[in-house]
């Protein structure tokens, strides 16, 4: 049987600690309670913040939740270059094999060209930016199918 007193105690606990949700169950009972409060406006909800790379001068990698692909994020803000100079072929293309040390692109900032390495072994699945594009810190650049 549902005991009101027990429930009141739980609610009091929520109020005192400003809990917005409570979900308790044991073999006999399940209790779920939500409480007012935190309406986050749609427009002010944090945009999907890319996960920060642990070392800022090496690319960030995160596992893309969709299909196990690994993301190479931009470690800096600047301009994306797919090739070392206009006459060279691009560092990598879709289906290129990459190892942890493979240079995949350059990011130019303040006239300095910074090499970005794959940081993972695998195959390039997708390239998400075009040669010459401006990129932000944390922007997704490549999807890698890990070996």
């Amino acid at each position, binding site marked *: 049987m549902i005991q009101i007193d027990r429930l009141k105690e739980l609610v009091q606990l929520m109020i005192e600690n400003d809990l917005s949700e409570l979900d308790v169950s044991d073999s006999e009972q399940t209790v779920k309670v939500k409480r007012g409060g935190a309406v986050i406006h749609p427009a002010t909800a944090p945009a999907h913040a890319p996960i920060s790379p642990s070392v*800022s001068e090496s690319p960030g990698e995160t596992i893309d939740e969709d299909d196990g692909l690994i993301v190479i994020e931009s470690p800096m*803000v*600047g301009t994306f270059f797919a090739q070392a100079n206009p006459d060279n072929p691009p560092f990598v293309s879709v289906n290129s094999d990459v190892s942890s040390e493979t240079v995949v692109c350059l990011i130019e*900032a303040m006239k300095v060209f910074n090499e970005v390495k794959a940081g993972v072994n695998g195959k390039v699945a997708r390239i998400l930016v075009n040669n010459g594009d401006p990129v932000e810190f*944390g922007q997704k650049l490549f999807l890698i199918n890990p070996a």
Partner: protein
Amino acid sequence: MFNRVLIANRGEIALRVIRACKELDIECVCVYSQADAGAPYLSMADQAVCIGPAAAAESYLDIPRLIAAAEITSADAIHPGYGFLAENAHFAEVCRDCRIEFIGPSPEAMALLGDKVSAKNLAKSSRVPVFPGSEGEIDDIDEAAQIADKIGYPVIVKAAAGGGGRGMRVCRNENDLRKNVSAASQEAEAAFGNGAVYIEKFLESARHIEVQVIGDKHGDAVHLYERDCSVQRRHQKLIEEAPAPHVEPKRRDEVCKAAAKLIKKAEYAGAATVEFLLDDKQNFYMLEVNTRVQVEHPVTEMITGVDIVKTQILVAAGEPLPFRQREIKPRGHAIECRINAEDPDHNFAPCPGPIHRFDVPGGPGVRFDSHCVAGYRVPSNYDSMIAKLIVHADTRRDAIRRMGRALRELEIGPIKTTTPLHRRLMDNHAFIEGGVDIHWLERMLKA
């Protein structure tokens, strides 16, 4: 005029600059760290660029990232706001090298006024009252003792390159002095790589009065009168007002004029604040010059009708000041209360976290500057100021009453803020009387 301004800052001052740009029909780009991703003020800029992780050293303080952000967005000017790189002459220099206009003084003017000894010398020649003390750095301890005798104890030993209290020592007699000069010098050497120290008269109790000045690139500078920022806790201003109460009008006018002259002499284009201590005999002594817009600039805007941030942008773009000194006619009284996400009942412990309720005061004479809205989460990475509540009224007494009622309309929760403390201060007899000193608030909080 600029096509696109990059805002190298965050929070309320970023929004303040966005507002100025919008009103001048200039596009603006706001940078942000990952901790500020999704903040509502970013959506008011024309563009927002993520420049790094939460740590300020890798985002708001990282010069190459800021310049790169300006370059990829084709911004032709950078507004540094206050804090972060706003008073960094090297940053101003890098901007110039990259052909991006720094919205602030030239690196030279910034360096000239940023160094306390050179600023003091220029001040003297502009008839800005300064602390009596050594003319520049001390070479010889006996000479220092002679000077201290002349100006009278207590004196303070300060580092020429210093700031934030480091390398400062108060000396109450000659013994103290002899002990402290070399110790202060060593401390300064360690902290700033420059061991030069000087001595000055020290005031046990004083008020903090500062004069707002703005100069242009055509050699003109106009002052916008003074502010009183004496209500402080641990050197953090909590309440500011304009004009300063109980200041002898003639002395006030002299000091304001001299401050404008100092800025003019420094060939300084942009907003500057000349800070003073005022003793109980109505003597002003210059403390330092701030080479940026101040948090408390709105109180001056309220009494003069001048938009300081817009004017910063105009003069940086090379336009002459849009007003003359004689056109500046202060009207009424303005007060600003800083609303910080801090718990005044628990030693001002920071209270970051989500804001669910954010009911803002309104009505006549009320201005509210904040980057927050209901649903915003105050990040724990940066300073705790979340809003500035400013009021304007005919008289100081009316302004205090107006502030009291506006503070009672302001409801922010569940995070704790300084609002309840401000409500108490508006009912406090000493504050209502006016002219409290810079240690008054701390004494009051202890009592």
